[in-house]
């Protein structure tokens, strides 16, 4: 009879950030390991709290499936003697396998015949297999950072302190270092004491609930959010919705109780982003807003425990936040005394990168690059672009950004406004960091767009020029994000800009610095890198990979043009004309593939069909050229599809590969000229 399996790994407090991934891995590992062990199972559920990782596998088969084991023995040539009787080697193999020689089979492997023993192995009981399987599974869990403890060799995210494994109503036994799995669990760290006996899976759930552990993260999350909303509503406000914070808090507590805390309204003088950063990032509180969307002088915290002595917890948390906000207010007042320009004077003492000069150098490069992009795109006013570029890094020198690095750009905008900079400049300072993360907003103002592109191009060009390139999971300078940001901005804003020129210009900005790579090499690598991101963007928007490959093999340095071309191609692929189109392409392309010249000597042409094509060519070429300039790809594609009848007729009427070299050259010339019209848009041989 099938039985359920439950595993609980008791650990010291797990980093909350690891948990979502670990729970997913745990589920996959359970499924894969069971399948590998030929044990069937039903649903697999995984749960985690700070102190435990747990899975419940339903309906594990009682026994492994039987299996056939095939063992290869000696070659046939040595398994038999000259008289065709079993040799010593042959008999020895049979004995070793525990089968009769006559039951051995002969099979060919790589052209050689071998003896094979085919044995049916009876599956073992799940109960026997599982302890070893669980042990292996626990050891194969991996974490961003793992550690050892005491004298032991086992690596885990934090020390393992107990193990519980139940199959049906039996406790499974195995060891990890000094920990022996046994029929015990532990409750909430502060609301329960000692080991708690567990007799069955149902009992496990009961015991945990009784001892203040809400095992299911989804349930905890729901409880937390309901409590947070309720507590905020009681204070006359609305809690900030923040999925990331909610998930983190859910993995910081085993039994949540939300509470409301207050701070002095005088701290509301500090920009709201500072207050919310302090609340969320430092303290994991939910900020609270009033109906007009303005911050209230309060917060919702979530305690790991019940409401027992909740006033003590509230008072403690209020005090901590007060100290933090006091610091923030101090920084705000201090910083506000200086103008942004004064702050920017210190940028010469701070390195952008060891080998790429200081932030002041970067500011100078950004001014030049922003002017260039402004000219190319027609966006922004030169003096405002220059001013924004000069000041965009200045807030890094403020006390506030030193304390709250995540507020870079945001504080810059405030300090710019406070220093009476023009609103466009203040906005561009904020927007030049956008997008800061996947799904973040893009810059919207003209100067913001220009400066954001300049910032990214400068960092990308500099890093690539000294050989810093993301590899695997290593991307310390977030170059992937910057390249993707570049693509998204260009596409979203429908900008026509020559990327190659942009990167070359950015590279030139480093003219006073000793770079590792030539301009040609690093710009080429960089363009490839950006096209990789472009490919991702196109795949995400539902374009099929063959269309992308076809279009990107005729790269244009104008991403927006490429984007449109790809979309029109994708649409055209669905149209009824597409079949004709591909016939024309294949017929023109296949024969002329290795032919270079479009030259056609009209005097040698014989048949009406070829003369017809020859006469149509100039007009067609002209029309396609016009369509491409107008970026009307659909029109160009249709024009080519319309050649179907003519080209069919041509192939019916004449042989291309004739002995007459002149005639052959003219015919291939016609085909080549047609094929080249296709090639100017994409490499259609990649279309499947």
């Amino acid at each position, binding site marked *: 009879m099938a039985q359920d399996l439950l595993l609980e790994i008791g650990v*010291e*407090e797990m*980093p*909350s*950030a690891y948990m979502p991934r670990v729970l997913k891995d745990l589920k996959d590992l359970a499924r894969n390991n069971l399948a590998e062990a030929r044990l069937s199972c039903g649903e697999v559920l995984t749960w985690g709290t*700070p102190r435990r990782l747990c899975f419940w596998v339903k309906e594990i088969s009682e026994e492994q499936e039987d299996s056939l084991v095939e063992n290869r023995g000696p070659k046939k040539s040595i398994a038999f003697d000259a008289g065709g009787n079993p040799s010593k080697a042959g008999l020895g193999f049979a004995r070793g396998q525990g089968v009769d020689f006559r039951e051995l089979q002969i099979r060919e492997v790589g052209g050689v015949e071998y003896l094979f023993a085919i044995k049916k192995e009876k599956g073992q009981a799940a109960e026997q297999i599982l302890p070893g399987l669980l042990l292996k599974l626990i050891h194969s869990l991996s974490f961003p*950072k793992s*550690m*050892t*403890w*005491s*004298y032991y060799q086992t690596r885990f995210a*934090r*020390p393992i*302190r107990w193990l519980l494994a139940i199959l049906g109503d039996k406790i499974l036994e195995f060891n990890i270092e*000094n920990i022996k799995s046994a029929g015990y669990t532990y409750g909430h*760290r*502060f*609301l329960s004491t000692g080991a708690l006996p567990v007799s069955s899976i149902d009992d496990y759930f009961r015991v945990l609930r009784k001892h203040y552990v809400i095992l299911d993260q989804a349930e905890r999350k729901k409880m937390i959010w309901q409590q947070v909303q309720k507590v905020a509503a009681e204070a006359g406000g609305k809690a900030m919705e923040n999925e990331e914070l909610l998930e983190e808090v859910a993995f*910081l507590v085993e039994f949540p109780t939300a509470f409301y805390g207050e701070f002095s309204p005088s701290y509301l003088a500090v920009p709201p982003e500072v207050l919310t950063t302090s609340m969320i990032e430092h*303290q994991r509180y939910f900020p609270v807003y009033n109906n007009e969307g303005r911050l209230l002088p309060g917060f919702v*915290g979530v*305690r*790991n*425990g019940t409401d*027992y*002595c909740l006033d*003590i*917890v509230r*008072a*403690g*948390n209020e*005090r*901590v*936040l*007060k*100290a933090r906000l*006091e*610091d923030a207010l*101090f920084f705000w007042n201090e910083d506000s005394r200086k103008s942004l320009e004064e702050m920017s004077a210190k940028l010469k*003492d*701070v*390195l952008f990168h*060891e080998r790429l000069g200081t932030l002041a150098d970067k500011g100078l490069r950004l001014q030049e690059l922003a002017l260039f992009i402004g000219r190319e795109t027609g966006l922004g006013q030169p003096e405002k672009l220059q001013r924004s570029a000069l000041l965009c890094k200045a807030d890094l020198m403020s006390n506030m950004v030193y304390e709250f690095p995540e507020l870079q750009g945001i504080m810059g905008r405030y300090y710019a406004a406070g220093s009476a900079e023009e609103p466009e400049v203040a906005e561009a300072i904020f927007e030049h960091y956008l997008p800061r993360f996947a799904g973040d907003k893009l810059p919207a103002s003209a100067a913001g767009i220009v400066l954001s592109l300049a910032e990214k191009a400068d960092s990308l060009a500099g890093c690539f020029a000294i050989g810093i390139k993301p590899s695997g999971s290593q991307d310390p300078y977030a170059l992937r994000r910057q390249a993707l940001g570049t693509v998204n901005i260009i596409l979203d804003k429908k900008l026509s800009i020559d990327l190659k020129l942009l990167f070359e210009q950015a590279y030139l900005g480093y003219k006073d610095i000793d770079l590792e790579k030539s301009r040609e090499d690093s710009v080429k690598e960089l363009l490839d890198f950006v096209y990789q991101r472009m490919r991702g963007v196109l795949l995400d928007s539902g374009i099929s990979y063959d269309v992308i490959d076809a279009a990107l093999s005729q790269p244009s340095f104008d991403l927006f043009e490429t984007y449109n071309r790809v979309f029109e191609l994708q649409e055209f692929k669905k149209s009824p004309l597409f079949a004709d189109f591909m016939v024309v392409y294949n017929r023109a392309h296949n024969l002329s593939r290795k032919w270079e010249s479009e030259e056609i000597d009209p005097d040698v042409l014989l048949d009406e069909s070829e003369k017809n094509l020859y006469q149509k060519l100039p007009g067609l070429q002209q029309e396609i050229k016009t369509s491409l300039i107008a970026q009307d790809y659909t029109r160009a594609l249709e024009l080519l599809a319309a050649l179907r009848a003519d080209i069919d007729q041509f192939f019916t009427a004449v042989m291309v590969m004739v002995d007459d070299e002149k005639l052959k050259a003219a015919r291939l010339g016609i085909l080549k000229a047609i094929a080249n019209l296709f090639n100017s848009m994409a490499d259609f041989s990649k279309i499947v």
Partner: protein
Amino acid sequence: MNFQELILRLHNFWGQQGCIIQQPYDVEKGAGTMNPATFLRALGPEPWKVAYVEPSRRPTDGRYGENPNRLQHYYQYQVILKPSPDNVIDLYLASLRDLGIEAEKHDIRLVEDNWESPTLGAWGLGWEIWLDGMEITQFTYFQQCGGFDCLPVSAEITYGLERIAMYIQNKESVFDIEWVDGISYADVHHQAEVDYSHYNFEAADVGALTSMFNICEEEAVRVAERQLVQPAYDYVLKCSHLFNLLDARGAISVTERTAYIGRVRNLARMVAREYLEQRKRLNYPLLKDENLRKQLIIAEEVL
């Protein structure tokens, strides 16, 4: 509970747990971890249990005695348990209970914190421990020290004494902590905070400090070459402190920073290596359990 009693209670608690109660080390240092009772003793196979108060200096944190939460000189209470015991968190919580902090009445959290000291070539994993939202302790399982893997792994518990005292005494400023009846933290330390802030930020002689750094670096190397481990380590500590002073003085550019840190780290590694060799030559006198000794020596030979 006054500041003094807080320390005495911790001494008493950890003393009962079998820790040697050592006294602060007499060279300036940034944290209790740098005391040889931690940095050196965490290396090698010998068990070790120690607790001590460590006066710690962070020149850049000086605020002329004006900020209620920041000091350039403060106290850590440091506990090292090597090897880390299975019930180490329970022990820690019991120590808080001895200070009158009953876990069930508060919200105590263990929040992921990965500790790393680039100057010591040391790192470990553990937590910040929060009491009602305030960080009061750093808890670290040492993984590497001076660039060498730690085996066994030590548990390091570092209490922020001033923060705990402020909490227990319900004070909003560190200077208001009652040290003993009628004497405040300000009475003991305020003027020195002001003076050191002036010294660290304004008065320190960059030229003198720079040559002192160079001299101490040379001396560390020279002494280490003669296998005089702790005397060499003293000069590593001096280098580290001189670097911190130069940093506070604004005398170290960003480029130089990395180089200075690398210099101190090299010294720390050198001394760590000397220490490991010395303990081996001494045949690990603190490995008193013969079974353990056999196991570890077999393990070492296998390596």
